[in-house]
């Protein structure tokens, strides 16, 4: 296990280094730069050029990359060229919205996807099982944007139970308000993510239902439910955990549609704004940190796999 952890850690470092080069270069392909954002269209070309020089944007790319990555390895992820805020501070502030948004949505999605997915698999031949399966497909087909707008219309505008948009100005210092602000976004995300999970759970459970070891367990006297609970779910969980990991990773930066519909100041919104402003020093650190987070999630998924399935532990 120690060897495995060391190998994974080394892979993480190499992956992050490769990602940093890729992120840096790809962002430089974007037309325009932050000097033009600062100068706008009133500044003369000479003024824009002077800003560019001040910011060091006229230096060779290798030198710019060196300055950035040199800071990163010492834990300094840099600052926004535009407003001077630290990247890590801003990410922490935005993650205080996106983190709970993502995790809450995933928990909610799991809460209905797992039981319904198992039910749909076990009762696959009944009309109710078929209905649940169809419901899952329907959920996948629903665009999150549309679901969000509909939920706002009903629960915010019509019945006025929940806020239509926004996050409290004082954030989690107003926990009640903050939670209320996240209810509709949670529902929106959970419906679409949960529908995907439901399909995977159903498929994974269907797969284990036909396994010899499950039949053996039943031959030894376990009920179908008992055999499924003690042996089946654990085996079915392996592919589901993989999908879950991918979903969480995708949601951290990918919940942007929901953030836009509900005007939540999250990570996705910040990234879009920063790219638009060409605040690339900030963007590259943000993406690198997010890449790191995704790699760590992948690592955790692998660990969970090993906890669930002992066969994987000996396969290092």
């Amino acid at each position, binding site marked *: 296990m120690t060897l495995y952890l060391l190998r994974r850690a080394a892979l993480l470092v190499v992956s992050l280094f490769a990602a940093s080069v890729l992120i840096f270069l790809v962002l430089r392909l974007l037309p325009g730069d932050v000097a033009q954002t600062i100068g*706008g269209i009133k500044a003369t070309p000479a003024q824009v050029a*002077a800003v560019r020089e001040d910011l060091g944007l006229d230096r060779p790319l290798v030198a710019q990359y060196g300055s950035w990555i040199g800071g990163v390895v010492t834990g300094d992820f840099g600052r926004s060229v535009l407003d001077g805020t630290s990247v890590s501070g801003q990410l922490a502030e935005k993650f205080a919205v996106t983190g709970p948004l993502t995790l809450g949505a995933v928990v909610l999605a799991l809460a209905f996807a797992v039981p319904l997915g198992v039910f749909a698999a076990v009762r696959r031949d009944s009309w109710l099982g078929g209905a649940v399966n169809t419901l899952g497909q329907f959920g996948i087909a629903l665009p999150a944007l549309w679901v969000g707008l509909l939920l706002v219309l009903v629960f915010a505008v019509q019945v006025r139970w929940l806020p239509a948009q926004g996050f409290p100005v004082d954030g989690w210092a107003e926990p009640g308000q903050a939670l209320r602000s996240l209810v509709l976004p949670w529902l929106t995300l959970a419906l679409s993510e949960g529908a995907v999970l439901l399909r995977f759970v159903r498929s994974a459970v269907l797969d284990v239902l036909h396994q010899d070891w499950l039949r053996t367990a039943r031959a030894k006297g376990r009920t179908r439910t008992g055999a499924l609970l003690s042996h089946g779910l654990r085996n079915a969980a392996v592919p589901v955990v993989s999908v879950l990991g991918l979903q969480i990773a995708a949601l951290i930066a990918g919940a942007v549609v929901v953030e836009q519909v509900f005007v939540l100041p999250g990570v996705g919104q910040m990234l879009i704004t920063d790219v638009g*402003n060409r605040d690339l020093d900030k963007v590259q650190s943000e993406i690198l940190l997010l890449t790191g987070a995704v790699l760590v999630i992948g690592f955790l998924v692998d660990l969970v796999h090993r906890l669930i399935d002992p066969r994987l532990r000996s396969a290092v």
Partner: protein
Amino acid sequence: MRRRTALRLAATTVLVGLTVTACGTGSSGDPANAGGTKQATQSADIDKNATVDVRLVLEPTSLDIASTAGAALDQILLDNIYQGLLTRDENNKIRPSLATSYEASSDGLTYTFHLAKDATFHDGSQVTAADAVWSLQQVTAVGSKNPDAAALASVKSVSASGDHTVVVKLKHRDTNFTWGLTERAGIVFKKGTDFSTLAGKENGTGPFELAGWKRGSSITFVRDDSYWGTKAKVAKVVLHYIKDDNAANNAQQTSQTDIETAAQADLLQPFSDTGKYTVLRGDTTDKFTLAFNNASGPTKDIRVRRAIRQAIDNAGLVKTLGGAAKAVGGPVPATDPGYEDLTAIDAYDPTSAKKLLKQAGYGSGLKLTVQIPNIYPPTIGDYLISDLKQVGIQLTVKQVEFQTWLNTVFTKHDYQLSLVDHAEARDLYNFANPAYYFGYDNANVQKWYAAAGTATSDVQRDAYLKKAARQVSQDAAADWLFVNQTLTVVRSGVTGVPRNFTSSRYDLADLAVAKK
């Protein structure tokens, strides 16, 4: 040239325009004519501890108004946090601010400003002539990085005469000088201010202080209770940045905001109850300009440019967008000096447009591409495709990110047609600058614009500007599709809400909330 234009990313202001309707305005008909909410509320009825929540669209990229461009900074920081020697009122008329009065010498070369003696910065220190002189010198200094430095290009020297008098000498007469002082170039900072510290904090002189900035969400102002002038009537204003129009509408309907600026005309129906809401219709200088590349490509030929203008039914476009806009026919909007109705020039005439294209050698058809920043509604592009198709022009709409537009069109002039909102007031100078991205080069226009700048009276200035604007329109240097109007939804009980030019500056000093 004196100054370069400020294109405002007034994505929403475009959308603002949708309907003249009586729909949202209820029994008052067009509430823009109903006196709006500027009626004074009796001071005894005002809740001085009130907080007002306002929906705005574009968030500033920084609060460093001395170095960072952007209409979003001007909109909230001018008048509220920072003040200049002069300001302008809701009708764009120049008014005193930190300078309570000023005189100009008879030759127009010397201006003497008298500062308010009791004005103070938010840190409590007094505003003196030395501060004003230092601030103006930072703008006019060689190598100044102030994006608005060109506004004070005619300044020869700035000096103090005592503690409260500032004397500015000009190199030549400049009819735009006092206007320039109303903009950010005229802001008075405390002498020695390190501008690099202003990105997230301030030390202004206005009636509000910055209390917080939640990036991506909101900016909060609180009343400066030791303000030197008439104090603000509300304790706090929270500016919520909501780009999505539907979300903004929902926020206003559910009382999350008290004021919704840049409302969409076709979304006003929920605000038809005049007992609960007032809808203000205001003027803007937002000229939605279909720019032609006058310097190269097919549009170098005036016949092609005129044909395009004649092929577009501007009135129909305004109607399609809901009606909250006006056709203008030239580069000067009705609220700027030098305006005259030029809509008769190259008016909608598809038959004539076809003839012009044939004369230009494009009788069998012409393919053109227009680059439009993706912040504007796609309806405009669709409309242009449809109108131009009828005269044989196959138009391709290329939606681009605004930074890409800045890089490709604005900087490299690599385009055929382009559409953006030129929101800056008094920006005719762009057509007197052949290096501008329009590539329009007419010696007479340049001469007349320069003459307007050094005119000895407003009448003379306006005459030159009219002459130049007419020529620009006759040369079809661009097509000004429409000038936008701005709609603001205000909940009942809130007064003192700005009506005009709301995306340029949003003076909060008169906001008041009636006691419940």
